[in-house]
């Protein structure tokens, strides 16, 4: 019933030329999304870029279990010394992410260009 979470990774650079790993998610993010969210992040490996962008542009539905997975990703990234930002959330989910405190650990932007420039 839940739309499966699909994820893929793109490698971009900031305007300053620093490498960025962009994790792009599609579909729903819920309790069943562990492999798509955490698995995709963990597959970046030890040589992953120090800058991580999360793309939620094509995510239709996130529930609290999905938000918990995002928080776990942020925790692992923080432990790895990586900086994370996110973009593409709807106004509603930007509000929800803000309610639970995520902007303290990952800045939220409306579009990719804005997020890349801020990293």
């Amino acid at each position, binding site marked *: 019933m839940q739309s499966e979470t699909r994820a893929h990774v793109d490698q971009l650079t900031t305007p300053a030329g620093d490498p960025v790993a962009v994790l792009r998610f599609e579909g729903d993010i819920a309790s*069943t999304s562990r492999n798509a969210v955490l698995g995709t992040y963990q597959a970046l490996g030890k040589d992953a870029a120090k800058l991580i962008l999360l793309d939620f542009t094509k995510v239709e539905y996130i*529930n609290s279990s999905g938000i*918990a997975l995002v*928080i776990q990703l942020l*925790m692992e990234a923080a432990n790895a010394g990586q900086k994370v930002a996110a973009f593409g959330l709807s106004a*509603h989910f930007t509000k929800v992410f803000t309610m639970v405190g995520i902007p303290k*650990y990952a800045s939220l932007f409306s579009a990719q260009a804005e997020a890349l420039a801020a990293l």
Partner: protein
Amino acid sequence: MSEFKSTTVEVRLPSRMGYEKVAMSTAAAVAKLIGFREDRIEDLKTAVAEACINAIEHGNRLNENLSVGVVLNASAHSLEVKVTDDGKGMATQPAKPDIDRKMHGQEDPRGMGMFLIHALVDEAEWVAGADGKGSYVRLVIRLDKDTE
């Protein structure tokens, strides 16, 4: 709609993750008929989703022999959503989620559903069922004519 007649809509969901989306869509449709703004409808959808997920996962323990009841009572100025399950109900309300504690591994990253429900609707009430069954959560959103 110029004149809204009070009405009740009922849905029964299987206790299977994902079916909260049926309740979300139904609540959104009724809220739209009453005249709620889109942002309030999105708030309601998330609150209903979280309430249904709690009912499915905790109340009915994912037992597909049990169903979750969703009753929507719509009036001209408000929408009440009751989500019922066969669980005992919440003994205590969980503490407000603390992102710092979660990020430092001191608190489970999960457990934000009730907090979101409280934050997104005008009224939320958890009622334990009699005889340890038939618990429900009651959510209310109100149409504020001054700001709508």
